[in-house]
């Protein structure tokens, strides 16, 4: 039997990791992500399940909640992106209260850290990254790509998710912005 190896979104065995000036950009090797959408008419059960799984329950628009292991990001009305759980795990936890879809292969993820984070993000996104605090999250276009921006540490660490198929273009946008500061 032939065995299948995985590649990162950039198409390599090992994730990209580079420091450019005062910024470190790291590719998330294998994102663990799933989308979580509330089934219509199942609000009570949905919220109950969420409260059991995520510290802080469901996040408000523009934010995320949870802890370092499992975070839930607000994506749209009654729709969330969960970090740290597969679709199978999430489906088991929510049962018929939610529609769950694996998204770990839908996104390319990059961690950005360093003192120049905000200066770099200013070149890429109209989101006010200067005022984002740890846990803030927003969907925002970056170089014409539909992205998700999550603040991990105010002013110092962010995660950018973009379409996996456009990983190369997103990577180029991030590194070029970092190099241009």
């Amino acid at each position, binding site marked *: 039997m032939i065995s299948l190896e995985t590649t990162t979104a950039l198409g390599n065995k090992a994730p990209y990791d580079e420091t450019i000036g005062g910024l470190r950009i790291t590719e998330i090797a294998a994102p663990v992500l799933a989308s979580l959408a509330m089934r219509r008419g199942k609000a009570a059960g949905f919220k109950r399940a969420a409260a059991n799984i995520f510290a802080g329950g469901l996040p408000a*628009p523009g934010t995320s909640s949870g802890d370092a292991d499992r975070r839930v990001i607000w994506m749209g*009305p009654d729709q969330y992106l969960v970090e740290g759980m597969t679709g199978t795990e999430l489906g088991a936890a929510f049962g018929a209260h939610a529609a769950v879809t694996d998204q770990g292969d839908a996104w390319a993820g990059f961690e950005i850290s360093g003192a120049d984070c905000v200066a770099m993000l200013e070149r890429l996104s109209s989101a006010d990254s200067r005022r984002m605090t740890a846990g803030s999250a927003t*969907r925002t276009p970056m170089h014409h790509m*539909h992205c998700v921006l999550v603040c991990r540490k105010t002013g110092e660490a962010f995660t950018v998710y973009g379409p996996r198929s456009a990983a190369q273009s997103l990577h180029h946008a991030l590194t070029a912005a970092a190099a241009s500061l």
Partner: protein
Amino acid sequence: MIIDHPLLGPRDAQEFVILGDAGLIDRPDWKADDAAEAFYEYQYLRDNPAGTHRELWYHEMGDRSWLIVTRDTVTHAVLKVELASQRRRT
């Protein structure tokens, strides 16, 4: 332009796609006797005034909400923004 998203606050109009007259929400009944006439009007006789207009905008680069934006097409002033899914059905 800036559209004041009811959930997300002010967002650049560059993140949105506009569809036009919000009348497209009120799709006619396909079984009605005058369905052919009603669908013709629904599809083709839409408003496009110079002045206050209710329009459908889609937050494509954002949360994927369809919004009803009440806007002055002359001054570009945005007067009201609602989630299309939350509108009271008339």
